[in-house]
């Protein structure tokens, strides 16, 4: 595990361009709700950035904007050196390089676990059948579900479904992964298995943008923590600084509230 000093150093030593760069993004829903009000953040290559904050603060909206599933009204989002857009071939090309994991799993219920994981390579990358199957099996093995290849999503526990969903996203060999409250819909006893897979990914150097209520995960895995409230970034910093001595009273209040929340599962120590 990296120390806070190392993490701080890594963060500030970055000179190269960020992999994900969100610049002054605004998003107002057709209903009139202002979900994002000038949000900026950066994720460098190989970094785990955790986004925390109360419900309705715009975290999930921000994540959907990053891969263009949700349009933005103002500002811009860059992935590498390309601007993220909502529609068209260019938008799809970027989306292929960004994996996404949803709170409600969103596995395809009419396909087996193997079929789900192979769907991206098969339909989007148009890979040959044998190559698709080999990749899908390897990824199911990686998330510890090699024996569940032929199971339908419905036959799997929540934690298993979410691990299949992670494997499905990884099958596109993305450069970055977005996690939208990936453990919020899980039974407490299966939260750990999903967090472990995420932690393993982080160790392997995957660039990750993680919206989470798991403060234990943010504290021990994140390189950088962004606190959001009301569609804005309240403050950001290394986990040590955010959890050790937040500058703002509102951040302190939020952290005190979630520290006492029952669903904060701890991540297995490395």
């Amino acid at each position, binding site marked *: 595990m990296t120390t806070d000093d190392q993490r701080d150093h890594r963060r500030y030593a970055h000179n190269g361009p960020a992999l994900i760069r969100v610049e002054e993004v605004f998003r107002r829903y057709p209903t009139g709700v202002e979900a994002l009000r000038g949000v900026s953040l950066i994720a460098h290559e190989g970094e785990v950035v955790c986004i925390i904050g109360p419900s309705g603060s715009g975290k999930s909206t921000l994540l*959907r904007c990053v*891969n263009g*599933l949700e349009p933005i009204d103002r500002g811009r989002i860059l992935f590498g050196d390309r601007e993220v857009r909502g529609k068209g071939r260019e938008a*799809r*090309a970027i*989306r*292929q390089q*960004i*994996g*996404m994991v*949803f709170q*409600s799993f*969103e*596995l*395809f*219920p*009419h396909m087996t676990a193997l079929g789900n994981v192979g*769907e*991206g390579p098969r*339909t*989007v990358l148009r890979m040959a059948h044998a190559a698709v199957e080999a990749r899908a099996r390897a990824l199911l093995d990686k998330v510890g579900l090699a024996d569940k290849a032929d199971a339908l999503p*419905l036959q799997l526990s929540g934690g298993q479904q979410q691990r299949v969903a992670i494997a*499905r*996203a990884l099958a*596109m060999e993305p450069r970055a992964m977005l996690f939208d409250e990936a453990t919020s819909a899980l039974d407490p006893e299966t939260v750990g298995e999903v967090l472990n897979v995420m932690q393993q990914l982080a160790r392997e150097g995957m660039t990750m943008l993680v919206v989470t209520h798991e403060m234990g995960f943010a504290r021990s895995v994140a390189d950088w923590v962004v606190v959001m409230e009301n569609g804005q970034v309240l403050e950001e910093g290394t986990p040590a600084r955010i959890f050790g001595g937040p500058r703002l009273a509102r951040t302190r209040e939020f952290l005190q509230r979630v520290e006492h929340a029952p669903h904060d599962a701890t991540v297995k120590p490395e």
Partner: protein
Amino acid sequence: MFHLPAFLDAFPALLSGLRVTIELTLLVMPCAVVVALLLALARLYAPRPIANLAMGRVELWRATPLLLQLYWLYYVMPSEFGILLPGLATVAFGLICNVSAFLSENFRAGIASIRAGQWHAGRALGMSEIQAFFRIVMPQAWSRVLPETASMWVELFKETSLVSTLAVADLTYRALALRTENYRTLEVLTALAVAYLVLAYPQAKFCDWLYRRQRVHE
């Protein structure tokens, strides 16, 4: 008195009509499914004017009686518009328009019932909207609308009997013709009922089976 020989003799006479009934059902249903899917997609995703047009088309055919629709096509189209189609083609066209109107509402509800997250999951993999529709949304919607579609099939099988009023020689037409020959109304109409029952009952049972199967899956 029920005359058994007359009852039994009726069946061979019905046979040629049966062929027309089955042909009509087999022709109409697949066409209606395709048209219904296009109507449903138009109402869900097309620009407003086209969606409204599709809605008008659906409501017009849902809100008028099938018998009237068939008569209108059969008598008004040739006399007022000079469009003269063979009788079978005319009634097939009418049935396709009618059945697709009802089916499209079913399809529309089925497609709309697939939650947005499924679209997001497909598109997050880099799929186009068309890929997401055909790979993700449609297979799920299809399994939801299948039971309703199957019972529509049985309904159609029986409703084709209306075409007998337009000199299309289906099962019912043959029976009514036979009745005017031998005046054995009781035997002939009972034979007709038995013919429909024997053919439709397995189809209805098949629908029940689809309903049960679908319940387990969801």
